[in-house]
C-alpha cells in the first residue's frame, strides 16, 4: 500500500479505496483473522437462506452506520462516543428488523434473536471505532461494506458446507437427491446441523486459508 501516491483529489475508486474494499475479504478478514463478530456467524449457518439474509442485513447496517458516524465524527464528544454509536446502530437494526418482519416473516422467525444481536456484533463497533471516527465519509462507507462482505463470505461458505452435508440441499434445492447418491447408500450427516460442527468448520476454514496465505500464520503457539 506504500506505493500509493497522495493526490489532491482522489478518484472515487482509487487504488487505496479499492484496497479498503478488498483487504477485509482475505488478509484482514473480520472473522478468521481479527476474531470479530463470531457469535452470529456460527449460529445462523445451519441453512444458506438465513445466512444470506443476515449477510445482507449486516452489509446495510454497517455501510449506513459507518456513513452516519463518519458524518458526525467531529461533533461526537469522545467521552460518550460508545453510547452514541450504539444508538446509531440500534436504530438501524430496528429498521432492518421491522423490514424483515414485514417482508420475510419466516426467515425473521428463524433468525430469532440474532437480528437484534447485530447491535452487539463486534465488527460493527470495531470498525466504527477504528475507522469511521477518523475518516471521511466515502472511505468509511467502503470500509464498512468491505468488512461486512468479508464477514458474509465466511458466513456463506460455512452455511453452504453445513447445509450440503447436513441436509443434502443447497438453498433449499435437494442437490443430493437429484444426484441420486442416496441410492448408492449415502446418508446425510446429521451431525453437521448441530452447533459444535459450526466451530469445527470455521476452524478448518481458518486452517485452509492460512495454509494458502502463509503470512497470516501466528508465530507464537496459542
Amino acid at each position, binding site marked *: 500500500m506504500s506505493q500509493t501516491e497522495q493526490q489532491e483529489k482522489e478518484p472515487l475508486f482509487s487504488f487505496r479505496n479499492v484496497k479498503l474494499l478488498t483487504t477485509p475479504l482475505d488478509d484482514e478478514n473480520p472473522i478468521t483473522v481479527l476474531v470479530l463478530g463470531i457469535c452470529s456467524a*456460527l449460529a445462523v449457518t445451519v441453512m444458506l437462506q438465513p445466512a444470506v439474509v443476515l449477510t445482507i442485513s449486516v452489509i446495510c447496517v454497517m455501510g449506513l452506520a459507518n456513513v452516519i458516524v463518519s458524518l458526525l465524527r467531529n461533533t461526537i464528544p469522545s467521552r460518550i462516543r460508545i453510547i452514541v454509536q450504539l444508538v446509531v446502530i440500534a436504530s438501524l437494526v430496528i429498521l432492518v428488523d421491522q423490514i424483515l418482519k414485514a417482508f420475510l416473516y419466516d426467515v425473521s422467525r428463524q433468525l430469532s434473536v440474532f437480528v437484534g444481536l447485530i447491535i452487539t456484533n463486534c465488527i460493527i463497533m470495531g470498525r466504527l471505532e477504528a475507522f469511521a471516527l477518523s475518516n471521511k465519509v466515502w472511505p468509511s462507507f467502503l470500509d464498512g461494506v468491505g468488512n461486512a462482505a468479508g464477514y458474509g463470505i465466511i458466513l456463506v461458505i460455512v452455511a453452504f458446507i453445513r447445509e450440503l452435508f447436513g441436509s443434502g440441499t443447497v438453498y433449499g434445492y435437494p442437490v443430493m437427491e437429484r444426484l441420486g447418491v442416496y441410492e448408492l447408500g449415502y446418508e446425510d450427516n446429521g451431525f453437521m446441523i448441530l452447533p459444535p460442527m459450526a466451530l469445527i468448520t470455521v476452524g478448518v476454514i481458518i486452517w485452509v486459508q492460512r495454509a494458502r496465505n502463509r503470512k497470516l500464520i501466528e508465530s507464537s503457539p496459542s
Partner: protein
Amino acid sequence: MEELVNIFVRSIFIDNVVFAYFLGMCSYLAVSRTVSTAHGLGMAVVFVLGITVPINYLIENYFLQKGALSWLSPAFENVDLSFLSFIMFIAVIASMVQLVEMAVEKLSPKLYTSLGIFLPLIAVNCAILGGSLFMQEREYGTIAEAASFGVGSGVGFYLAIVGIAAIREKIKYSNIPGPLRGLGITFIIAGLMGMAFMSFMGIEL
C-alpha cells in the same frame, strides 16, 4: 422454588450460552489465553447478566409489552412499544455497566483492578444482550425466574471460558501444524467442548 432451580441448571448446562447459542463467542476466543483473565471476565459476566436480565424483565413487562402500560391509565391498553426493545435493552445494559463499574471502583478497588478493561467491554458482549433477548422470547413468568436465568447463563459462560483457558494454557506445549496454530486450533477445541456439553441435551428437568 423447584422451578427456579430447574431454570438455573438448564441455563448452565443444557442451554449453555456459549455452546448452544454461540453468544459471547468473540470475548470467549479473544480473552481465554490464561485462566486468570478468563476468571476475571467470567465473574464480570455473571455479575452483569445477573443484574441486567431482571431489570430488562421489569422494563419489558411494565413498559414495552402490548398493554403493559395499562397500570398508568386504562387509556394505554392498546399501546405496543415492543419495537423499542432493542434500544431500551442496550441502553439499560450500557448504563448498568457504567454504574456497576463505578460502584465496584468505590466499594472494592481490588476487584476493580482485577476486572480491569473487561467491565466496560461487557457492554458490547453479545452474551449480555442475548440474555435479555432470550428472556423476552421465552416469556418467563416472574422476576425471580428471569433472575435465575440471568445468573445461570452467566455461570454457564464462566464455566466455558475457564475451561477453554485451562486447555489453551496446556496446549502451548504441543506441536501444532503452523496454519492451525492459535485461532484455528482454538475453534476446534471449542467445537470438541461443545460436543461434550451436548451430552446434556435431551435431559428433562
